């Protein structure tokens, strides 16, 4: 394969110069045009189908609810990547998607051709790395972070496969948010006194004006980290979400939230031990003007999170502990927004009880359905469901939490074992509706054992186990006693070259009572709703996967999901699903 190097004599005659245009833009260094590979292509083809059967008490004497359904789609994401010279790259993805069986009048919405992504990235003068367009952004867990929807660190491969599709469809790449705008990063090396300074700045638009009463909303962020040496590291982060009021004729509101945090990390190293002292802290400033109420609400709060860890290097065993205090009015929408709408309607077999009731999205729906997910930043705290995590529903930045965390972890890519165990003893900082405080106890952990590596087998063999136990209690006039248990078990075995059998089981139990806070636009609690459950959700999965090459496979699974609601047998149902998937990625 021969790729012609495009060079432009005209450009090559021009020496690289450095242009300084202060006030408009600081631009450094024109790089000689060198054309290595102008264009290449990437792609992902996926065909995905389900066949569903629904049964159980929820459908007793029910002649209207859908008992069987099948859904399928095929899509192709065609990536065109252009690099006119080595310091610039444009990446685009064009999506064609067809819903199998959708035709005629359904075609308009179901079968689409879509511009999934455009991103321009490059280096300015080898100093600033920039990305423009569709970008994935994150900072710290308190500033800009897209937390996982629930604890699922040690799932079966059968579940990971499903979850990866959901993540891809919703741009959940790690804990980044997908936004549109620009981000700039730099990494400056120093000869003396300092090792390096890392810096990042980003500006994105998270809401577009409707020109009449809704203004543009932006996220502006930045961080500077000074690495004095491998022993001392100090940083500062800033992030704000704000409305650009003038972009609407008659603005209905004006919102801004600013957050400034400081970070530190000190390291002390011995022969076999490594100690780290780290932490982050800072205030938040919330301000919201609502024209309809002629009211401006302002409040400030703060958080701190201090940690210490000790690593025994020969065993790669890490013991860590920390104490955090996140104020009840601490506000950080870019870290507290949920990536999933807990109350959204499932897309598969969604009706029960004579089609009169929408089935609440279960743990299986949350794991497998793309349409439940949220990609926008919400400035108010979204409603959550305690059964999927009550101690930290908004991630580490969950407001009104304080307490200790202690954990132990072992992770090594060369090792056959990865394990993690964590205990959190948290409480509220301020009572909600009463002076009494909720207390939260969290026990989480899991392991992943690569038996093939352990036994030097050529074929894949691995098991996973994960668990999470949460207890919420509160005494006083409005007592709360709520518990959840989550257990994950998985096995994968490659019994024929490239062909694996995948087994997985997941069990979630929630029992007790809670009170769900209702909030107004200013995030103030206005009422409480009872949340009383005694339910068990179980997923049993068996499947096959044939891997063509990396990230390309064909798989068939049988999934059995059982929802047991002790309080209301009308919600008891069994859902069987056969899932097939072909994914080719190049």
């Amino acid at each position: 394969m021969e790729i012609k190097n495009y060079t432009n004599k005209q450009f090559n005659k021009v020496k690289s110069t450095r242009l300084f245009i202060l006030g408009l833009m600081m631009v450094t260094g024109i790089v000689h045009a060198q054309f290595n590979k102008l264009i290449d292509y990437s792609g992902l083809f996926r065909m995905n189908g389900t066949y569903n059967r629904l049964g159980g008490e929820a459908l007793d004497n029910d002649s209207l609810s859908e008992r069987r359904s099948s859904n399928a789609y095929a899509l192709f994401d065609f990536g065109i990547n252009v690099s006119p010279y080595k310091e610039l790259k444009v990446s685009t993805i064009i999506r064609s998607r067809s819903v199998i069986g959708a035709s005629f009048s359904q075609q308009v919405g179901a079968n689409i051709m879509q511009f999934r992504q455009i991103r321009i990235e490059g280096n300015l003068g080898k100093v600033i790395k920039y990305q423009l367009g569709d970008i994935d952004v994150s900072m710290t867990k308190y500033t800009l972070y897209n937390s996982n929807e629930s604890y699922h660190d040690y799932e079966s491969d059968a579940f990971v496969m499903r979850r990866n599709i959901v993540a891809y469809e919703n741009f959940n790449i790690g804990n980044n948010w997908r936004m549109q705008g620009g981000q700039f990063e730099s990494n400056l090396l120093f000869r003396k006194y300092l090792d390096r300074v890392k810096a990042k700045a980003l500006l994105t638009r998270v809401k577009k004006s409707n020109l009449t009463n809704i203004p543009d909303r932006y996220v502006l962020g930045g961080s500077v980290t000074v690495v004095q040496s491998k022993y001392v590291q100090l940083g500062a982060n800033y992030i704000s979400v704000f409305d650009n009021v003038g972009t609407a004729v008659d603005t209905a509101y004006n919102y801004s939230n600013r957050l400034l945090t400081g970070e530190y990390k000190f390291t002390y190293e011995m022969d076999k031990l490594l100690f780290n002292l780290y932490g982050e802290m800072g205030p938040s400033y919330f301000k919201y003007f609502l024209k309809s109420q002629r009211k401006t609400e302002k409040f400030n709060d703060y958080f701190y999170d201090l940690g210490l860890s000790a690593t025994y290097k020969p065993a790669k065993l890490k013991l860590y502990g920390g104490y955090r205090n996140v104020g009840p009015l601490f506000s950080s929408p870019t870290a507290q927004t949920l990536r999933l709408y807990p109350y959204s309607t499932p897309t598969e077999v969604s009706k029960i009880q004579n089609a009169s009731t929408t089935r609440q999205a279960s743990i299986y729906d949350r794991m497998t359905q793309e349409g439940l997910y949220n990609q926008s930043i919400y400035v108010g705290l979204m409603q959550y469901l305690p059964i999927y995590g009550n101690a930290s529903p908004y991630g580490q930045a969950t407001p009104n939490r304080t307490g200790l965390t202690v954990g132990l972890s072992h992770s090594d890519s060369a090792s056959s074992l990865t394990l993690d165990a964590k205990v959190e003893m948290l409480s509220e900082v301020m009572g909600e509706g009463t002076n009494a405080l909720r207390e939260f106890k969290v026990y989480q952990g899991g392991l992943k054992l690569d038996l093939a590596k352990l036994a030097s087998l050529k074929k894949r063999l691995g098991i996973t186990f994960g668990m999470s136990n949460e207890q919420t209690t509160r005494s006083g006039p409005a007592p709360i006693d709520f518990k959840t248990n989550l257990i994950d078990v998985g096995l994968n075995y490659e019994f024929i070259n490239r062909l694996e059998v995948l087994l997985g089981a997941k069990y979630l139990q929630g029992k007790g009572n809670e009170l769900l806070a209702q909030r107004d636009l200013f995030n103030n609690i206005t009422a409480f709703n009872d949340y009383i459950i005694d339910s068990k959700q179980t997923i049993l999965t068996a499947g096959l996967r044939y891997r063509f090459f990396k990230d390309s496979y064909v798989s068939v699974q049988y999934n059995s999901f059982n929802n047991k609601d002790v309080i209301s047998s009308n919600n008891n149902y069994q859902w069987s699903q056969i899932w097939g998937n072909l994914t080719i990625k190049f």
Partner: protein
Amino acid sequence: MSFLRSILIVTFSLWTYAAMASDSLKLGANNGAKLSNSRIQFVRNAEPDENNSRLGLKINLAKEGEEVPKNAVVSFSGSFRLSADYRVMDKIYAGVAQKALVLNGWVQPYNALRNQNFANPLLYLESNIKPTSKTSISIGYAFNHDFSGENDSLTRAANIWRLLMASAQIETKVGKFKIGTAGASGFPNVLSPLTSGQNTFHFNSFFRLPWDWFKSNNDKVDYFYNNQSVALDPRFSSTSAGVQGAVLECSQLPYGLGANFIVGKINQTTGYLEINDPPSQNLLRTLSKDAYTQTMGARISKMIKKHVIGVNGLLNSGFVNNYTKTLHSTQYFLTTNGTFYYPKMFVNFEAGISEFTTPAPFGQWGKPETFGQGYESGINQMLSLKVGFNKGAVKYPSFFQVYSIGKDVVNQNSSIINTTGTNNTGIMPSYLYEVNVFRSCMLEADQVANNRTGFLFDITREFWKKFKINLAGNYSQEISNEWNMITMQHMANKYQRSQFGFYKTNTGPYGRILNQFIRSYETFKITDKDSSYKKNYYVWDFTMKYKAKLFGKLIVLGSYTSFNSVSDKLWPVPVFTEQAFLRQVYEEINMNYLINPKFNLTAQLGYEKVLGNDRIDITADGKTVNQNGYSAGLGFDWVFSKNAGFYLRQVWFSHKDVNFVKDEFKGWNTLAEIKVFF
């Protein structure tokens, strides 16, 4: 936002200062694996296109290891662009937002609807397939993504109705055949100028057009020196609304014959306004018997030595009542045209007729006295004669043109501007988004209109190969006085103004503004009780271009002056006294300074003065229109790679009517754009 800007500036400054201490940064991960994993295989580079040197690499669809068929190749080419346009107004019309950020749209979508940035593809992708050596197929796609922040599919959709601009070409022993299907604006100039031509409008090189195809600063500056205006891309410009459908072009037939055929559907903003029903942009519907705004046309031509003559026919027809489809309107155009080339000159003529018939009970032009009668226009003439003298053959390259076009010749797909106010349905265009009707419109120097008899001239002289002057004029008189109105195109700040009610008519503080795509018009009423006269329209354009070296670098300076007036008096020179209903002067000075081939510093100054007399709109205290518009812009084109550039424009602009006090706006506008060709 000043705070934001400060942060960005300081941040960039710090980085720049510390540049020497930096390490190299690696680009982020690609989307997907390398091609080595795929069955797609590069085989060779694309042949340069006749217009530009495309760099699309051809790929082979054969399986890996198989011999590559020589011609079974696909190539991709196109362009990406990311743009941000930010506007802040100190003063603005009531009902218009003080600030606006338009990402990747370049113009504010009307109604604030999503996916309305149709004229500005963020990604234009053209695939070219050549299954055999004499057959080729090309398909164009346009994609939008307006970065709403909400990540929904509506904001990142393919631009369907500009999609699938496909053409296939085959060469045979009896001739070349090219068949094309297209979205709107796909077929300019398939027939003749008066049946399917395209208008031109004044845009200078400072103006950053969204489809700007120049990869090189040298080329752009050179083009600017040699041409009066930057041309518009008919696919996206909406200057000619075009036809959605199919065309067959046959050339090099025996006996010098040629033939073109077109069938399709007229765009919703063209002659036939569709009422109460969203427009169908679907080719199948075009061909069905239920089509209600269809067009069919044909041209047969004959080459006689170098000369060309042809016969053209075009039929536009449609139902103006979409539901019952009982009211069928038709308009036909039948012309003959030809061009005769001689060593020192050329002669171009077109002569024909057109007739418009509608049973629509809406009345002629919506006038109350004819309400309920329908309308039959009778035969309308379409006449044009143009004589040109070539560069090199004469001292002053020039052309002269006379034309006469009847008032009922309404064809938005042609070069004829519709000034008579009908939109072929017979309905008065009070519809909010009917923006292709310019009642009694003042023209630019090289434009023709219906209901006019006119004379155009254009003379150019170049001195020392570095100083060029051009004088162009357009005198025209109404055939009949249809409207006591005058529509004027604002020349200063037309792009900015067009966003204050984008794609709307009857807007602005006095309901006089009509905004088109990147252009803005204003309509004034004539208050005469006795209007038994014909209005005369005068245009003089005077352009100067000068190129020189400044500090050893090429600089090109330009000046464009336009005098435009309307009067009931017929004079040999533009009426610039109180006897003119409306006088407009526009002066524009622009500069391109090529600091090096990569970096072009560009600037523009503009001033517009509009004066009315006491026979048009007046204020309550008896004062007339007296407008002043200013603009000052600075920017650069930084072509940092052969195929990629960064473009920045900063414009300050203002407009104020001394007497109509609500007619005032002032602000600034920043446009930044990255464009990459491939």
